[in-house]
């Protein structure tokens, strides 16, 4: 067991941190957020040049063959800077579907484009009534000759505003909540019959509501077995949870650091407020939560490429639940310790708090994952 980064990993971390320190401080981020798209194409290209888009893909597909540890390193850094570009949607979600579901031909066609920063992806899976249940799919795919015709509504499609291609899940057979009978279809965002309404999320990231009204999809755009897409979605969701956990660590690091700094510089009653023992202990609570969350994220990262679905899913339940709990504690206490100033848009800490909150609501909140873990018999059961 070894918790040190390799030399390559250290270089990756340092260069990304340097890039973001240089180009993505709080002021610059506010400016990017105010742009029409709400994210920066220039930064997108910079990430691609650094190889971030190619990172998790196999070398034979045109990627860099990175492991979940590399993704963890990147996501932590993106979390620390509250990056707005759709890396998670394109590389983790879209890339995950490509890696785990796509055929060799599909990978040969699309991985190089993603790796080069030329293609943005999204995963349209959540629906109005699905909440966090991955098997709940009402959108319908009807066979039409060799191809398929999709109809339905998808909600909160992360990065759906910017995506060139969207992976849409749809029911090819069975009832709304059946495990079998879910297909994944790669749809051009400009396809006829696809309408998207793009918007900003609470945390400044972007998403879209997507409606599909008789969108035709050729056979070549089906990902994997059109009756068994759920196992792919589950795998991608588990990797997404590991990645989001890592992002959350970056966010919590900043919540912690900003709060600590504030406690040291802010004076009240003639002393820095960090001299008050109650506030010290609350800062310690944040620190402990951060370190415990960091530990569970390491565990999730270790398990992210496990082929044992049961063990892997339990690990992700545990991680996402812990991240949700620790993140809420850290976020709420960070705001409380800042007092009124923490409530303002002008100050960074509130933005970290909002991102932390959004992460809890993405791919299942604390309660959802705790329930699932308990239903599965627990972590050691």
């Amino acid at each position: 067991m070894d918790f040190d980064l390799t030399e390559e990993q250290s270089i990756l971390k340092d260069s990304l941190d340097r890039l973001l320190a240089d180009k993505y401080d709080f002021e610059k981020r506010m400016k990017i957020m105010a742009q029409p798209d709400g994210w920066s194409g220039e930064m997108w290209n910079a990430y691609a040049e650094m190889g971030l888009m190619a990172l998790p893909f196999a070398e034979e597909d045109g990627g860099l063959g990175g492991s979940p540890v590399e993704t963890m390193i990147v996501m932590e850094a993106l979390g620390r800077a509250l990056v707005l570009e759709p890396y998670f949607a394109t590389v983790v979600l879209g890339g995950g579907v490509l890696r785990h579901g796509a055929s060799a031909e599909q990978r040969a066609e699309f991985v190089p484009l993603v790796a080069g920063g030329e293609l943005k992806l999204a995963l349209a899976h959540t629906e109005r009534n699905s909440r966090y249940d991955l098997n709940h799919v009402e959108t319908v795919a009807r066979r039409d000759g060799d191809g398929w015709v999709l109809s339905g509504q998808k909600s909160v499609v992360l990065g759906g505003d910017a995506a060139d291609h969207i992976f849409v899940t749809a029911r090819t057979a069975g009832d709304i909540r059946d495990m079998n009978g879910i297909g994944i279809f790669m749809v051009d965002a400009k396809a006829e019959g696809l309408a998207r309404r793009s918007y900003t999320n609470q945390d400044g990231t972007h998403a879209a509501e997507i409606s599909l009204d008789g969108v035709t999809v050729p056979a070549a755009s089906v990902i994997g077995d059109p009756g068994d897409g759920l196992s792919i979605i589950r795998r991608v969701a588990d990797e997404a949870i590991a990645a989001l956990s890592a992002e959350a660590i970056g966010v919590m690091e900043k919540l912690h650091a900003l709060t600590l700094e504030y406690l040291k510089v802010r004076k009240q009653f003639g002393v820095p407020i960090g001299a008050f023992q109650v506030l010290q202990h609350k800062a310690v609570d944040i620190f402990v939560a951060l370190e415990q969350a960091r530990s569970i994220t390491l565990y999730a990262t270790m398990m992210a490429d496990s082929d044992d679905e049961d063990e892997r899913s339990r690990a992700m339940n545990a991680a996402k639940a812990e991240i949700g709990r620790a993140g809420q504690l850290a976020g709420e206490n960070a705001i409380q310790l800042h007092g009124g100033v923490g409530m303002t848009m002008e100050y960074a800490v509130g933005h970290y708090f909002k991102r932390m909150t959004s992460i809890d609501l993405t791919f299942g909140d604390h309660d959802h994952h705790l329930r699932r873990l308990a239903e599965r018999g627990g972590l050691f059961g």
Partner: protein
Amino acid sequence: MELRFTPEELAFRDEVRAFFAENVPDETRAKMSEGEHLDKDDMVEWTRILNDKGWAVPHWPEEYGGTGWDPMRQYIFLEELQRYPAPSPLPFGVNMVGPVIYTFGNEEQKKRFLPRIANLDDWWCQGFSEPGAGSDLASLKTRAVRDGDHYIVNGQKTWTTLAQYADWIFCLVRTDTEAKKQEGISFLLIDMNTPGIEVRPIITIDGGREVNEVFLTDVKVPVENLVGQENKGWDYAKFLLGNERTNIARVGMSKQRIARVRELAAKEMSGGRPLIEDPRFREKLSSIEIDLKALELTQLRVVAADAKRGNTGRPDPASSILKIKGSEIQQGITHLLMQVMGPHALPYHEDIEGSNEPPIEPDYAGSAAPGYFNYRKVSIYGGSNEIQKNIIAKAVLGL
């Protein structure tokens, strides 16, 4: 010991309920149910309905328009108001500056200001907080220098709630820079239209504009707008802040919000059934309900104790419990409401910015996350919960 409402109290409650049912504008009620912000016109309209009925300033002395209700009836009135839900009277006039004026002001000030507060002819805002002061309110720096018949005021106030609507602001200003920090403060009433006043919005993390910065540059304030004695303003401020805590439990409002959570959780699905049937969810909700029921009784005990002592306006230090538990409960409910919406709480609905695009579905999800963000304030303002615990430790426990 009689732990139920008396028949007279129940009859009064029915009277209040009936009045609300007939008189609260439907749109106002709907906005409050959905957790949306009210605009100025909503507040003015409703206050005048109340004032016509003679209920706009229930706890004031009858000579200034009060109702003569005992504390229990005042409690019932506010409880029913919040629960309906209808807007509570604007606190800056009715609960803050009004009582200061009728307690410490001169006859002319009473005649000039009190009726206009009751009718919301004047919208008041509060000029206490300053940048960098926080819980150490008395460290304020805004100065007022006497110049003939006027004070010349320079300084900056912050966290000024709804100053964008305000006609008047009541300010703590430093009139003696040599004295100890609590002893050189005066209480001034300032017309917001006076030259030299600038209001800048503070946008909060929920995207709302509730609070502002107020800059005062060479603002000329007539000396007749001084309340009470020069350099005694801290006493009046303490009196005012004491009043502020009495309504902070907000039991009625929390009951209304819980009903809303229950209603929406019956619509939203989780694991193939309504979320309200999920054991964890419903137990969390019930746990808050229990806390709230206990708080309601705690509030009633404080009210009853007030009634016995006579309503001095000085709160029982135990009322800090109301602030602590009240804010925990309110925050817990906003978190639950956001959880109900799940992923649909993520989109930011720009309704308050006046967008005319149709809302992202479901429309009632829009206020869930902003409500959670916004309510972090309730454990911060009015003396943070940490300060409240300090107060209890010192004043009640003698530590």
